[in-house]
Every structure is written in structure tokens, then in C-alpha cells.
């Protein structure tokens, strides 16, 4: 009936194969699209000859950059207010870029016809290494932008430079390290795609698409295509995982829409895996130089960082407008630091656009990785245990709400308690003793700690918008006459269990079973406006909206109850899921009784409408700041360099847990992400810009064999500003776990004297260290 473990409503259809994902959508007369992609990373397009493809008997249309130019659609705006080519007109800027779109009667024929398109390219030198992007004489990637003479995108900084520099000058101990957070990809198991259906008679466009932000997509289509917004319906059906890869609009979606407008029939486009890896939003690719200053007795004083951010050929990074480096400036982490400063420079390279994806909470992954590596390196420098160093510097509970040196106001936290719990669960002291024994025998065992503070729930409309759309979210609740309810929300689940947990919130607030609440999401004609699900913002924003709209309904029910009971509303109390006269629970009326009465001929006070509905827009006052303490134990085989994650202890605190079962599942998934990123995932490129990780043959994802049984713990520190005290959590484990794994591997390799190692810690790379060869920190460039 309320918070707590509850089996998921979604499961009934998914375990029977009865989900409806985009590729399951079938419409009468539907055609199939396929995208022709560039084999070059950087090349001028001399000519595109589509005549042979057009002559294919099953082909209905071939759309090129020229076609789109005529419609004013060859370029589209990105979420970073840059532009991106829908289909290349002048030149191609990354391998895998969209060049032409074929629409055919069946998907096999559409693919056949791609082979018949003849594109002549004039290859250009590619900019692959971000560190070379700003060199004088580097090829200019974005010569389409007026006045652009280089590959610089932006400079951005946060924190107090002067104070930070002063602290560094006086510091007793400083540690500096270059580190790369390599380019990876969220790789949801379902790729991207769309079914576009433009009805020429009604002028209405319907787009089925696995988008995490259906309302934002609708508004952007209206802006881009010039179609009236009320004539656009975006339906985001069941999504086979998003992980941030399905926030933005991809050229394929626009092509499917144009294909439908041109042919007058519905057009389906589904990309395959290599297209997904090559062309949709990558994650990370931050080259960071981090520095940490401390006293000799281990008090951290300041952190300073310079970042070179590789954004690919079009700046398509998805983040709030005023935050070109996302929330990277939470990098002072969980520590009581006097000052901090960061500078971030974004550059263009000949790679696909992206940056913010893969459960990063707008670059918090990079921030947490940076600080947690630096703290470990400082511990090594000072000869202190990394757990002890953290314990000495963690923010204390009485410091909250705490304003960080870069301006974040952390809402609540009890960090020492969470770290102590993790150390206890892991048996930390015994682990260290075991490690010493094993080391004496020549075995390589490592223990890695990560303590993180997340920042999720974007966000306050005053500071946070995406393309001018404030990050507030709506909720609508309607209670039917018989007491069953429908909740309509703007967030969009991709597996996070919203249909279950949002029903639980309503159930808790209204005293009705969660099974009596249907949650509607993902259909812009059916749901209130809002910005969707990413940045772990559903619980902080839409969850708050849900609780508050339910309270609004409850208040209306109170007036109905007063009329029914012939009492003053002031004399009523809400207890046991009923409104009753104070001191006389037997008079109570349940919500179901009140719902029927609200729809009846019951006389209500002047000005009070009947029925039991409410709507709300929730503008969050702040983010929520969940946190966690993670401990990873690895064994490294010195003969092969193979790293085995033996144990992983994760203590998370996300405030009030709506459904602990679902929270645990979210954490498990994120921990697997961390193991994957730390040990096996990377999208590398050769010097010509060829993508070397463009399929699951090379872009490796952990299976059941590489993952250990996760050991979870929890503490509960509610968010004071949130209506039910809940914080977001979905991305915590992806954010928090990679540094724990890397810290563990570096710890295991202690006997070899290395200080730092860049991800991914593949067997080949670890083996190099064991062989006394330098660790490769340049994986992106062979």
C-alpha cells in the first residue's frame, strides 16, 4: 500500500514478451529507412549520386543533404546551442556520420539500396587527439560556422582561483596527476530508432521513439520542422534502457520524419549496434589535470583542476544551458575543502557528438573520479590509509546544509556513518591483514575505496534550463468515482520502475493500494509538460510533484469529507487513510468513499468544483545530494594481468527509499557499469579517426561472469527540502564505482610502484605494468 518492497507492475508484460518497444510498432503501409554513413572521419563531399538507389524497385525515396537543404532541415540545433548536420552537405566530420537516408518497402531492401549510393569524398586530415585540437594549423573542423578559425568551443571556470592558488603555494604537500576518463558509450541494449507517421489530412505528426524526454523532443521538432506543436505527438513506448543515450534528437529521427512527410506513409528507422556506438551520444572523454593540496598531517585544503573536454564534431552535449561542463564543479566531493577551482576547455574533434550520458548526472562521474583518485594518491604520498584520510576530511553531519567552495549547497549527509558501515561490512581491517599476507606470498590483491557525493534532480528553474525550457516537471492526478486513480507524469522510465514507485507515492499519500494507481507517461498528448528522465531527476522532481499533487487531491477530498460529515474542514484530520472528525475515527471517510461523493449530487461549498483531480508544476528549490561509500576488492593475476573483482561493498544513502527492491536493482546495474568502465570499456580511435570500438566485438560489456555478487548496505539521511525526503539514486553507483575499482587495482599493483593508471585496466595494460613497462595512458590514440 505504501513505501517498501513491492513487485513491479511492469514485469507482467515484459516477462511474457508483451512489452511494446519502438521496433515492435507496426503501422499499416509502414516503410523502412536506413542511413548511409561516412567511412571517413573528415572529408569533403564532392558528389552524391543516388540514381541507382532510386531505381531500386523497392525504394520509395532517397533523401540526401541536398533534399534537406531545400527544406531548411540539413542542420539542426543541438542541446548545447550548437548545430549538427542531419545529413552532411559540405563535408563529413566523423566516421559514421549520416550522409543519406533510404526509404524502402522492407528493411532488407533499404539496406541493399545503401550499397547503390555512390558518394565521392575528398579526404582531409582528421583531428583525433583532443590535445592537438588547438594546435596552430590544426584542420578546422567546423568551417561551416561563420568566423570559426579553430577548434575551440568554450572556456568555463568555477570556484575561487586566487584563494585556491594561494593555498597551493603555501601547502605542505601537493599531488598532481594527469588522468583521462576515456570515451565510453552507454550502449543501452535497445538501440535508437523511430517510427514517424505524418498524416497529410490532419496535418498531425506522430513519432514513436525511445526518448527519455518526449516533451522536449516535441518542442524541438516544432522549432526545427516548423510544425505546430499541438499537431505533434511524441510517444515514447517501453524503452529498452536509455542510460542517457536517448536524451537528444538524432539525425535518424529527423530523417524518419522527413521520410514520412515525403512518402505520405509511416517510416520506421532502427539503427543497428555499430551505428549506435559510432554515432549516438558517447560519454566522458575528459582529459583532466588534477591537483590536491594538504597539510602533512592529512588535512585536505584545496583542489585544482584543468580539463580538456573532447566534444566531437558537433557540440551536442546534453546539459543545462548555463553549465557547459555540466555539474563537474562538484569535484570537491565529500570533503571539507577550503577552496577549489576548475577550468574546462571544450574542443571539437573528428568524432561523434555527445559527452553527457551513461548515468553521469551531468559530468559528476568525471568529478567523483577525479577527486577520489586524488585522495587516494594523497594517501599514498602521506603514507596514510586511504580510509583514514577520508575519515579525517569528510564533511561532518552538523555542517549541512553545506555550501561547497564552488557554490553547491549540499542538502544533508552523514558521511562518517556511511563510511564506517562500509568498512564494517567489508571487514576492512581483516582485508588489509589478508592483503599483507598475500603480498608476502607475492600475490596481488587490492582494496579500493570511493566515497562520493552526487548532485541530482535538475533543477531550480532559475538556474537550470535546456534550450530555454526550465527544468520543472508537471504531474496530474485524477481519482475516478470508484477510487481508482490515474497519475500522469512527464518523466519517462527506461526500466527504473516508475510505473510501480510513482504509484507507491500516490498510494502512500492517499491511503489507497498502489495497484489502484495507473501511471501514464511517455505520451505527450496524455501527460503534462516536463523535461523527462535523466540526471536521476525523476524522484527529486517528478516524485516531488507526485507527492504534492496527491496532497492537493487529499485537500480537495477534505472539503468533500467536510460536506459529507457536515463538519468544518478545520475539525478534520487525515489518519489511517481517511478524513475523520478529530477524536472520532469512526466518522472517517476513505478516499474511495470521498471520490464517489465528489462525483455525486453532494452539495459542495461555493466555489468548490466537483470531482477529485489536481495538477501541479514542481520547480525544485535545490538538487538532492545522495552519497555513498564503496569498497572494491580485486585480485590481479600477475601472469596474465587479469583483474578479478572479488568483492564489492556498496553503502548508499538516498534518503527515504520508496521501494528498496528497486533501489537495490538500480545500484546493482550501476556497479556493473563501473566494473565495465574500469576494466574493459573504451572507444578508441586510430590516427585517421577510425572508430576502433564500434561493435560488441571490441566494445566490451561485463557479463554475469565478470560481475561479483554485490554486497549492499544503506543509511537513511532524508533530503529536508523534498516532500517525502527522497533523493535520486539511479546514477550513484555508476558515478561512485569506477574510482573504487581503479583505486583497488592501483592498490594491488603497489609493489610495482605505480601511482596512477588510466581506465580501462585491461589484462594487456595491467600486464605491461607487471612486466615493468610504462602504463599506457594514451589509449585513445595508439
Amino acid at each position, binding site marked *: 500500500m505504501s513505501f517498501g518492497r513491492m513487485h513491479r507492475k511492469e*514485469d507482467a508484460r515484459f516477462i511474457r514478451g508483451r512489452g511494446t518497444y519502438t521496433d515492435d510498432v507496426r503501422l499499416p503501409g509502414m516503410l523502412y529507412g536506413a542511413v548511409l554513413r561516412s567511412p571517413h572521419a573528415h572529408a569533403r563531399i564532392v558528389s552524391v549520386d543516388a540514381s541507382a538507389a532510386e531505381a531500386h524497385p523497392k525504394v520509395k525515396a532517397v533523401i540526401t543533404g541536398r533534399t534537406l537543404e531545400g527544406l531548411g532541415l540539413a542542420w539542426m540545433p543541438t542541446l548545447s546551442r550548437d548545430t549538427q548536420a542531419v545529413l552532411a552537405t559540405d563535408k563529413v566530420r566523423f566516421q559514421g556520420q549520416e550522409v543519406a537516408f533510404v526509404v524502402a518497402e522492407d528493411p532488407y531492401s533499404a539496406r541493399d539500396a545503401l550499397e547503390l549510393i555512390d558518394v565521392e569524398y575528398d579526404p582531409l586530415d582528421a583531428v583525433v587527439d583532443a590535445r592537438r585540437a588547438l594546435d596552430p594549423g590544426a584542420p578546422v573542423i567546423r568551417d561551416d560556422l561563420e568566423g570559426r578559425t579553430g577548434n575551440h568551443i568554450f572556456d568555463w571556470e568555477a570556484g575561487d582561483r586566487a584563494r585556491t592558488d594561494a593555498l597551493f603555494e603555501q601547502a605542505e604537500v601537493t599531488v598532481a596527476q594527469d588522468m583521462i576518463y576515456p570515451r565510453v558509450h552507454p550502449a543501452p*541494449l535497445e538501440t535508437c530508432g523511430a517510427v514517424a507517421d505524418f498524416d497529410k489530412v490532419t496535418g498531425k505528426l506522430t513519432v514513436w521513439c525511445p526518448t527519455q524526454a518526449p516533451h522536449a523532443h516535441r518542442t524541438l521538432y516544432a522549432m526545427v520542422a516548423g510544425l505546430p506543436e499541438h499537431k505533434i505527438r511524441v510517444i515514447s513506448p517501453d524503452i529498452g534502457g536509455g542510460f542517457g543515450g536517448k536524451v537528444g534528437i538524432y539525425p535518424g529521427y529527423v530523417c524518419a520524419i522527413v521520410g514520412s512527410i515525403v512518402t505520405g506513409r509511416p517510416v520506421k528507422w532502427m539503427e543497428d549496434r555499430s551505428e549506435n556506438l559510432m554515432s549516438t551520444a558517447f560519454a566522458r572523454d575528459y582529459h583532466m589535470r588534477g591537483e590536491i593540496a594538504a597539510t602533512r598531517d592529512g588535512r585536505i585544503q584545496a583542489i585544482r583542476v584543468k580539463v580538456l573536454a573532447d566534444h566531437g564534431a558537433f557540440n551536442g552535449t546534453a546539459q543545462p544551458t548555463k553549465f557547459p561542463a555540466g555539474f563537474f564543479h562538484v569535484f570537491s566531493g565529500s570533503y571539507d575543502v577550503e577552496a577549489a577551482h576548475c577550468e574546462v576547455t571544450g574542443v571539437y574533434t573528428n568524432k561523434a557528438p555527445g559527452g553527457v550520458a551513461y548515468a553521469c548526472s551531468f559530468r559528476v562521474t568525471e568529478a567523483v573520479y577525479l577527486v577520489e583518485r586524488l585522495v587516494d594518491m594523497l594517501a599514498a604520498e602521506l603514507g596514510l590509509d586511504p580510509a583514514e584520510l577520508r575519515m579525517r576530511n569528510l564533511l561532518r553531519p552538523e555542517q549541512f546544509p553545506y555550501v561547497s567552495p564552488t557554490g553547491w549547497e549540499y542538502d544533508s549527509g552523514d558521511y562518517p556513518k556511511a563510511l564506517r558501515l562500509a568498512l564494517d561490512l567489508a571487514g576492512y581491517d581483516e582485508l588489509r591483514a589478508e592483503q599483507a599476507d598475500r603480498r608476502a606470498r607475492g600475490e596481488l590483491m587490492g582494496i579500493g575505496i570511493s566515497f562520493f557525493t552526487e548532485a541530482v534532480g535538475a533543477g531550480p528553474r532559475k538556474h537550470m534550463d535546456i534550450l530555454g525550457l526550465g527544468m520543472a516537471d508537471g504531474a496530474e492526478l485524477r481519482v475516478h468515482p470508484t477510487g481508482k486513480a490515474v497519475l500522469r507524469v512527464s518523466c519517462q522510465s*527506461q*526500466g527504473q520502475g516508475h510505473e510501480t514507485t510513482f504509484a507507491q507515492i500516490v498510494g502512500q499519500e492517499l491511503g489507497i493500494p498502489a495497484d489502484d494507481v495507473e501511471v501514464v507517461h511517455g505520451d505527450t498528448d496524455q501527460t503534462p509538460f516536463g523535461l523527462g528522465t535523466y540526471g536521476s531527476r525523476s524522484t527529486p522532481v517528478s516524485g516531488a510533484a507526485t507527492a504534492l499533487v496527491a496532497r492537493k487531491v487529499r485537500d480537495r477530498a477534505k472539503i468533500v469529507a467536510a460536506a459529507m460529515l457536515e463538519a468544518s474542514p478545520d475539525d478534520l484530520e487525515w489518519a489511517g487513510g481517511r478524513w475523520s472528525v478529530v477524536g472520532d475515527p469512526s466518522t472517517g471517510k476513505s478516499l474511495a468513499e470521498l471520490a464517489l461523493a465528489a462525483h455525486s449530487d453532494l452539495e459542495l461549498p461555493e466555489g468548490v468544483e466537483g470531482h477529485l483531480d489536481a495538477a501541479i508544476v514542481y520547480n525544485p528549490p535545490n538538487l538532492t545530494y545522495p552519497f555513498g561509500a564503496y569498497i572494491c576488492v580485486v585480485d590481479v593475476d600477475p601472469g596474465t594481468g587479469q583483474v578479478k573483482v572479488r568483492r564489492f561493498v556498496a553503502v548508499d544513502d538516498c534518503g527515504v527509499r520508496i521501494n528498496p527492491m528497486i533501489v537495490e536493482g538500480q545500484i546493482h546495474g550501476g556497479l556493473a557499469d563501473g566494473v565495465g568502465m574500469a576494466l574493459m570499456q573504451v572507444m578508441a580511435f586510430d590516427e585517421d579517426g577510425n572508430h576502433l570500438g564500434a561493435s560488441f566485438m571490441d566494445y566490451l560489456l561485463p557479463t554475469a561472469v565478470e560481475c561479483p555478487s554485490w554486497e549492499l548496505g544503506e543509511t537513511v539521511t532524508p533530503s529536508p527540502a523534498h516532500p517525502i525526503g527522497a533523493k535520486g539514486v539511479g546514477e550513484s553507483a555508476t558515478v561512485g564505482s569506477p574510482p573504487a575499482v581503479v583505486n583497488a587495482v592501483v592498490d594491488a599493483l603497489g609493489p610495482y610502484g605505480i601511482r596512477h593508471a588510466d581506465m580501462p585496466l585491461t589484462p594487456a595494460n595491467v600486464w605491461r605494468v607487471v612486466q615493468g613497462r610504462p602504463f599506457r595512458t594514451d589509449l585513445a590514440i595508439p
Partner: protein
Amino acid sequence: MRVEITVNGRPHEREVEPRLLLVHFLRDLLSLTGTHVGCDTTSCGACTVLLDGVAVKSCTVLAAQADGCEVTTVEGLGGPDGLSPVQEGFRQCHGLQCGYCTPGMVMAATALLAERPDPSEQEIRDGLKGNMCRCTGYQMIVESVQWAAANGGAR
């Protein structure tokens, strides 16, 4: 070419191109859309079905190769409205989130339990290594299979 494939106990005769993949035969010709496609390199296992009782990746089998064979998909498990123990185990133990790997995972687990009714945790992990999941981190999938093993197995 003409093929006759028995799917979930019902024979289906269709004219197909020789190059048609079994997964597309199931999804596009028979509208059995529970079987999913997650990759193009036979890596992910989202398309796993039983072919004459053996778990196969249906993206790597031609429909023509299944001519005369029996195929079981996720839609064919359980009774008219009931669930097989494996399906029920996934629900009980939260072995799914987005649900996209689930049909393939359920079929692979069903084949595993048919071969090995009481697998150890390691045997389950090894047995499912051909099936990728991006959401669950696998642990509750392992628990789901253990639940199924204790409650009726591969039935």
C-alpha cells in the same frame, strides 16, 4: 523459398527470402515481438530462442535453417495465462528492469535448467554469459534462476 516452422507448438508455413534471419521471421512475419535484437555481432543474446530445445541466438540462424524445426519463444512459455517457473522467478526476484534482455535471458535460463536442474551460482553465471544485461548487474537474475530451480525448474 517455402519454410514450415513450428513455433510455440503451432506450424507456420511462409514464403521467405533465403537470407531472412530467424529473428526477423519471428518478429516481422509472426508478430512475436518478445524476441529482441540488441546487437549485430551475436554478442548480446537478446534474441535467444529454443530451436529443437537448444538455446540459439536467432539473429545468427536463417529462417531457412529452421525449416522443419520446433521453435519456442518467450511467448510460448507457461500455460494459457500462467507463467513458467523461470518467468515467475524473474518477477519474484526483480530479475528485470527495462525488460529488453528478459525474453532472451528467460529462454537461456530455461535451457540451462533443462540441462542442469540444480545449478550452482557459478554454473548459472557461466550458463548465462552469452546474454548481456545493462540494467540489473546480473545478481537478481542469478537469484531469479535459483528461485526457478527451487520452484519447478525448466517446465
